[in-house]
């Protein structure tokens, strides 16, 4: 069988202006000339699900911590018999991954370790998970306490008399190191339960596929998925606030949510407004530590720093309540449907098999919700605090003359920032008062800014090099939807492709038609109109509020358990995920037929429209 291949890394054209891009990332993140033979022999797929846009140098921290820590739990903690971690590189600004198999001869020896280790967790899940919450919240609370104060003009006299013997610069250095290491700590915790959640899910998944050959993946997901989840709490808080605003007759105060201070003042001054404001404030901790992005980028906006975002969502919910829509998720219906599905499958089995089915299902149903809920604690909350602290630091460094613009920091790697800090404390210590950075960095940063902008003009290749004939690695299949069929489809080897039809995963059932709205960035979300079909490279669960007004979702990347799939099932909307190219093939305004049961998207008619930000768009460049 002749297999088509994806391009080699060296085959991909470097966008004009991005020459020398390798220099902006650490050496260990880019393909090496010296390792070309080895690296070209491997299959790499692009994770544009988590990293849809080009990394600025400082932003590689999220990719590095996430994928490294994912790997360590396979390879070093849980000793997954047949899967090590996932190797990763940045190429032309995008992240590519390659799963590392376990040599055949080592598999057997890992089995007893694996079983002992998962037994430790699965035997006492609830208590272990409660301890996890404490650890993670403890980390966040420590991060919150970190301060990046300006260095003093002179050492305070009491430090002299108290014999401190230090100039205070060590606190700046320590706090920076602490910020990095606490973030690293929560990324390690992130995967302590995540891989286990997937293992329990895969175990039930494989059992289902055996007793019910070809059972739709969706049925399996539905049987273990939580209905009331922490990940949906932030959105639920907004709905509750919208309903309260209607109840208290405060609707008229939501006419200009782009000015949050005026909006909140006007509400506070209205009769009953104090009750609303109290609930609004109580919702902040922790639920407004929530981003409309995915936590991996410095430009991700968090609700607690951008109150216009939740206020705008609330105003939208209010409009829908007034239009007579039901804004609360149909949880009772979802629970009843889930119970029906579980019961009907169980009834198909004999008593003995049904008992095993239920044991495996209940383990998966216990462990799996973590896969969804952890996202709030790490990607939203931890990373929200992290980026806020980074902004505090870069503001202080800008004020100190190190940077011209607080954004400059993002064009340095995290270890380069460590050098800048020592540059600053040196100039402070020696009394020169001017860090070398002020002179040495502007040119470098401008060049890097140009490279990042140039890299952004090209989309990533879906994958690199020759794929294996079959994709067997369980996590790759499940997390990223990288299946043999998907890879073949990217290569254009589909057996049957109907014209104007995209194929993807049947991620959430239902059949609808409607106009497309292509959303490339979270900031364009406000252009989405009621009744449209959302088409995006990926979605984040934090896009929650728009799922109440769209008809269906289509994504380029993502499997049955991608965020888009999970949220759409929760909102009872059809979804087709992992189409590969929907966001580049479909134009806003095209009439689509989305079949979330079959996993197809048909472009019924191409409507040529002038695209551009809508009247309410908050779109801007980063």
């Amino acid at each position, binding site marked *: 069988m002749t297999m088509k291949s994806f391009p080699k890394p060296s085959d991909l054209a470097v966008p004009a202006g991005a020459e020398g891009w390798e220099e902006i990332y650490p050496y260990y993140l880019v393909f090496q000339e010296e390792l070309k033979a080895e690296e070209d022999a491997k299959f790499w797929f692009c994770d544009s699900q988590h990293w849809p846009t080009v990394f600025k140098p400082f932003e590689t921290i999220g990719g590095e911590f996430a994928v490294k820590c994912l790997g360590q739990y396979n390879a070093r903690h849980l000793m997954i018999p047949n899967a090590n971690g996932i190797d990763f590189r940045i190429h032309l600004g995008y992240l590519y991954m390659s799963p590392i198999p376990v040599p055949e001869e080592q598999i057997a020896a890992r089995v007893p370790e694996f079983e002992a280790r998962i037994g430790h967790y699965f035997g006492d899940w609830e208590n272990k998970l409660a301890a996890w919450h404490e650890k993670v919240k403890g980390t966040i609370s420590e991060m919150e306490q970190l301060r990046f104060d300006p260095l003093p003009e002179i050492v305070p006299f009491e430090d002299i008399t108290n014999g401190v013997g230090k100039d205070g610069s060590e606190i700046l250095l320590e706090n920076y190191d602490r910020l990095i290491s606490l973030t690293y700590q929560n990324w390690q915790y992130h995967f302590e339960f995540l891989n286990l959640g997937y293992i329990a899910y895969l175990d039930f998944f*494989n059992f289902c*596929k055996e007793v019910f*050959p070809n059972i739709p993946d*969706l049925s399996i997901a539905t049987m273990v998925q939580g209905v009331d989840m922490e990940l949906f709490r932030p959105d639920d808080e907004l709905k509750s606030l919208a309903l309260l605003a209607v109840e208290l007759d405060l609707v008229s105060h939501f006419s200009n949510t782009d000015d949050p201070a005026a909006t909140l003042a006007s509400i506070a001054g209205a009769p009953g407004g104090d009750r609303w404001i109290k609930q609004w404030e109580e919702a902040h901790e922790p639920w407004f530590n929530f981003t409309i992005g995915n936590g991996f980028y410095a430009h991700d906006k968090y609700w607690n720093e951008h109150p216009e975002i939740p206020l705008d969502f609330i105003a939208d919910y209010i409009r829908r309540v007034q239009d007579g829509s039901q804004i609360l998720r149909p949880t009772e219906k979802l629970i009843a449907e889930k119970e029906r599905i579980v019961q009907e*499958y169980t009834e198909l089995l*004999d008593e003995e*098999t049904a008992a*095993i089915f239920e044991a495996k299902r209940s383990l998966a149903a216990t462990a799996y919700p973590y896969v969804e809920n952890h996202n709030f604690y790490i990607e939203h909350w931890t990373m929200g605090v992290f980026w806020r602290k980074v902004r505090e630091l870069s503001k202080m460094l800008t004020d100190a003359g190190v940077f011209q613009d607080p954004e400059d920091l993002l064009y340095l790697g995290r270890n380069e920032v460590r050098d800048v800090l020592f540059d600053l404390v040196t100039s402070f210590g020696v009394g020169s008062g001017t860090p070398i950075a002020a002179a040495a960095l502007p040119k470098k940063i401008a060049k890097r800014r140009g490279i990042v902008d140039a890299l952004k003009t090209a989309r990533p290749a879906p994958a690199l090099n020759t794929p294996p004939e079959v994709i067997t690695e369980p996590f790759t299949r499940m997390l990223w939807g990288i299946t043999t069929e998907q890879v073949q489809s990217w290569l254009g080897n589909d057996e049957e492709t109907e014209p104007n039809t995209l194929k993807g995963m049947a991620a959430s059932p239902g059949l609808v038609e409607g106009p497309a709205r292509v959303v490339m960035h979270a900031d364009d979300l406000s252009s989405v109109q009621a009744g449209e079909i959302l088409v995006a490279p990926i979605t984040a669960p934090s896009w929650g509020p728009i799922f109440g007004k769209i008809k269906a979702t289509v994504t380029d990347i993502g499997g049955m358990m991608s965020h888009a799939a999970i949220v759409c099932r929760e909102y009872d909307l059809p979804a087709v995920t992992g189409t590969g190219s929907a966001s580049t093939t479909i134009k806003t305004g095209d009439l689509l037929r989305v079949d979330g049961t079959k996993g197809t998207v048909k472009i019924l008619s191409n409507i040529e429209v002038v695209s551009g930000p809508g009247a309410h768009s908050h779109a801007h460049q980063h």
Partner: protein
Amino acid sequence: MSNNDFIEFFDGGLAPTLDSLGGKGASLVTMTAAGMPVPPGFVVNTAAFRAFMGAGLDEIIAGHLAGLDPEDIAAVDKASAAIRELIISRPVPDSLREVTRAAYADLQSRFESEVPLAVRSSATAEDLPDASFAGQQDTYLWLNGYASVAEHIRACWASLYTSRAIIYRVKNNIPDEGLCMAVVVQKMVNARIAGVAMTLDPTNGDRSKITVDASWGVGEMVVSGTVTPDNIQLDKVTLAVITEHIGDKHAELIPDPATNSLVEREVEAERRNVLCLTTAELEAVALLAKRAEKHYKSPQDVEWALDADLPDGENLLLLQARPETVHSSKAPAPKPSTGGYASSMGFGSITSSLMKIAN
């Protein structure tokens, strides 16, 4: 639809009683009530038969049968012919004729224009030879107009007195007193699309699937294998489509009103290469099969049709449901091969599960 002392509509909502409706009639009422819509119609019940026979016929028939020797075939044939002639020619009491005519009109009012009907006898089992249910096999198809229907109702009644039925009762000491017969009057199916549905995967016995074959026209060509139908497999629990193969469907059998029979014709190209069922119709077929399985408590092999004379949503008809026999005697689902059952509860089965390629 309106029931009365003599008539019971399939969808009339009354409890089906074998004594009153006979085996076939009771079954049609039961199926309709259980959400398995058979072609619409009504039963002329055993009380109607008695009202007819009671008006002096019983005595005359008893006279013909008195002292009859079951071994004397010629004598039996003669008595049988005389009795059947009597039943066919005797005027029906006015009260009975009126309600039958009204029921006929009532049934026809469901269609845009008059449709052909079928008339079938529906015996109460003990009166007839069990091997063949002789009386039940009297079926008259493609009847047009009330007069023809009325005539064939009486033909069904008369079938109680075939020579074979008379000999059977004499030999088995079954008295003629209390003998009865119900008659089913039912719409002829005018299948636009038809096929079969099995409540399992026939290739491996997996009971979490529903397998549907569907083709244009009457289902005979699907059953006999003379066309390649569309073949669709659905998940039984969620009704998600799992596989879908468009069959060639090169020909169809359709009713020919001129000859009151079925004619075969070629299917034009544009109907061949598309699925004949819409998503909604497919779902309705699957639900129908699912209900039949639930009702009969075993995997079913169901014949169904979409009737061209009935409106959308009411046009799916169940023609026959019979137990699936190949796989049903086996365990309901294949047993997992991973480890023993005991180990399946432990972490060992998680290990082996993880090592497999999930497909």
